[in-house]
């Protein structure tokens, strides 16, 4: 499986933090991420290191116009999102959707540093929990395991699991994770690597390291570990809380991961959450149209029926307990406690179809709407086709690339006009045009 490093990057430079730049110069853009856009990050020029740039807060970028209104600033933010959408290819993305991730947490003494409030350690736990929830939301069939780095060894904190609650439980108790001693990158990475060695070939293998220390205590040569990871096609990404270490950047660059140094709390969360969207795969068409991808496979899956807790109790096949609620295997009608799982009787992989459907909008994005620049001769609709808001009667003086002075945005397929709110909502949330259903 080949993973292209550049494709995780934003196409716009102004959303790029210097630290994660690396060799990612051939960024191809990606599907819009509402969360990021809403923050409206400021422009940071391309620089070698993140801490050399000043972190621009979202409220600094908002400028009032002469009339003291925020209208122009808001329009500008909307237009920027619109432009990004136009630049992104409208064809289907290929993404590695079955992901396996090991979250490597630094539990060394340096995590007790208070440069982030309350401590690096507490902040890391808090953000990790949010990260896990959001990650499972966007990668429904993925699995996460947790490994800690403490007192010179790697420590298995949570086994690979596809259930967010299991992962959250593993990192819920901060007393069990109390930082101590020195970290060992090599030991921890080896442990993560060994726990991913059995995985099927059609899934991605990733390690995300949250690293607060500036040293690592390794028993051997860490470059051997790095080579083994490259061989196993493991992608390593590092979020550093202190400063850049050469070995960390090298690991990310060589395995196609992302490297970032957090400047403050908000930035820490931003660069961690940038690792959530599924990485795009190198398109097969590059190798001459529909070349076979050795890691791709066709999987047989069953979609179950869910029984309510009012149904007559029956024995489940997984625990042999008498239960009312559960799921029925569509092939052998065995009763299962939870999905996704493999049926214990017939071996069929059982998934709930909404889990699969959550990622479909990656495959069939809505075509971007065109900003209507001048009033057409044919009688235009008075209201937005989506929300029925009336369009302004007169053209506003505001202009700019991607902003319609009439406040109208036209679907290229069904030719209906939409207001700018609906334009954003349709493309970022609904992923389905109200006019044509595409």
């Amino acid at each position, binding site marked *: 499986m080949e993973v292209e490093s550049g494709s995780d990057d934003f196409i716009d430079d102004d959303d790029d933090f210097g630290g994660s730049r690396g060799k990612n110069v051939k960024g191809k853009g990606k599907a819009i991420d509402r969360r990021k856009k809403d923050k409206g990050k400021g422009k940071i020029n391309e620089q070698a290191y993140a801490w050399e740039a000043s972190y621009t807060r979202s409220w600094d970028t908002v400028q009032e116009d002469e009339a003291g209104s925020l*209208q122009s600033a*808001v329009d500008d933010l909307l237009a920027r999102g619109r432009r990004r959408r136009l630049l992104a290819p409208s064809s*289907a993305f*290929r*993404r590695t*959707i079955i992901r396996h991730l090991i979250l490597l947490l630094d539990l060394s003494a340096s995590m007790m540093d208070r440069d982030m409030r309350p401590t690096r350690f507490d902040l890391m736990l808090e953000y990790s929990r949010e990260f896990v929830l959001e990650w499972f939301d966007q990668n429904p069939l993925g699995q996460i395991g947790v490994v800690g780095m403490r007192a010179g060894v790697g420590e298995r904190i949570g086994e690979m699991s596809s259930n967010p609650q299991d992962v959250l439980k593993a990192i819920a108790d901060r007393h069990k994770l109390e930082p101590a001693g020195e970290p060992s990158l090599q030991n921890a990475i080896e442990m993560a690597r060994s726990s991913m060695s059995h995985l099927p070939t*059609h*899934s991605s293998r990733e390690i995300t390291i949250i690293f607060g220390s500036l040293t690592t205590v390794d028993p051997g040569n860490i470059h051997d570990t790095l080579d083994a990871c490259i061989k196993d096609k493991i992608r390593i990404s590092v979020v550093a809380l202190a400063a850049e270490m050469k070995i960390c950047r090298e690991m990310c660059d060589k395995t196609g991961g992302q490297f970032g140094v957090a400047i403050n709390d908000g930035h820490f969360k931003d660069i961690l959450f940038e690792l959530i969207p599924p990485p795009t*795969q190198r398109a*097969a068409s590059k190798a001459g149209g*529909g*070349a*076979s*991808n050795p*890691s*791709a*496979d*066709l*999987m*047989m*899956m*069953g*979609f179950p*029926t*869910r*029984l*309510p807790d*009012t*149904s007559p109790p029956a024995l489940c096949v997984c625990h042999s307990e008498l239960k009312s609620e559960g*799921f*029925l295997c*569509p092939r052998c*009608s065995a009763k299962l406690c939870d999905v996704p799982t493999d049926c214990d009787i017939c071996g069929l992989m059982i998934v709930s*179809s*909404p889990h*699969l*459907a*959550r990622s*479909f*909008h990656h*495959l069939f994005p809505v075509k971007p709407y065109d900003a209507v620049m001048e009033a057409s001769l044919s009688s235009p609709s*008075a*209201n937005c086709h*989506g*929300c*029925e*808001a009336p369009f*302004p009667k007169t053209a506003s003086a505001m202009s700019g690339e991607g902003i319609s002075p009439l406040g109208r945005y036209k679907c290229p397929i069904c030719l209906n006009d939409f*207001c700018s*709110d*609906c334009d954003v909502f*349709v493309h970022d*949330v*609904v*992923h*389905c*045009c*109200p*006019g044509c*259903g595409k």
Partner: protein
Amino acid sequence: MSDFAVEPSSHMSVILDLTPAQWYLSSLPKNEYPLSFRSFLSQTLAFLNSHLASKHENTLAVYGALPGKSVILYSSTDSSVGQDETVADANSYQPFKTVDSVVASQITDELDALGDSDEEAPCQLVGALTKALCHINRIMNPNFTTGASDAPQPTREPRIIILSVSPDLSTSYIPIMNSIFSAQKLKVTIDVCKIFGPDAVFLQQAAHLTGGSYIYLERRDAYLQHLMMTFLSPRSVRGILAVPTQEKIDFRAACFCHKTIVDIGFVCSVCLSIFCQPVPVCSTCRTKFPMKTLQRLNASRPSFPPQPVVRSMSAARTPTTSTPPGTRTPSVSNHHADRTTSISSSASAKVNGSSSVAVGNGMTP
């Protein structure tokens, strides 16, 4: 009642399925409980009025899903929709009168505008659903970009009620699922009342995933009672009232290749496209699959072609049904027979197998 005074106002979007052919079938006297469109509309309007009456600030939008198009019929938040030309009548409460006359006249206009060829087109439920979501998005986030200074206060607990008579449209599987996920993001509850026809798999999933109720209407002469008991209360109140809950939820999906509804599918590991049979190349992402896998999957497949109904016939899925599965249609409706609703009316209590067989006959004219 003092508790109800602090309840926030709620917004309700109602989607009426206006497929003429299905309403004709529903009104046939051979159904055990025939329900004509006229009777449906008058009961629905009574329900809409009671929503407006339960709190002064409550807002309402009504959408129509017609063959091939979807329209907004009425909106209490936009004066531009459905201008009211009726003169005030001293004997009726004006908001009720407005809703009734606007909805009725809009429906008449839309149905008159339908040509013969249009009636063949599939019902545009997705369009109505996405429009309702766009509308809720706007009233939930009054934004200064719309320039409306008299924007209504954000309402709490928005919900969408789908009154459906058409069968599942498998071509709209992906848009419906996308709408469900955006409803989840907006914290919109989707309630479904299936008035006529077979169970709608995707609407079951919609109600389940958004925390709403899915009701299969067995006693269609008790339609208004079902509406009032189940759908009138906003979500915060439903915990106190025992509203009927969904029995089984069918998690089947539609395949991308033939748009059939499948219970066992073949899934591309790269893009998660679903196919009803092993395919050598994924039609969505153009990935070629290894020959070995195809041979293995073809060998392990059951010899008969996938049939969506086969699964609902299996006796194991309806353990409480004593009737052995006979012909296809009655057994489909057989598992409505053991549906438990907690409405304590005589309506749902006395339902037995025979009534649902009659419903089944009704849908195969």
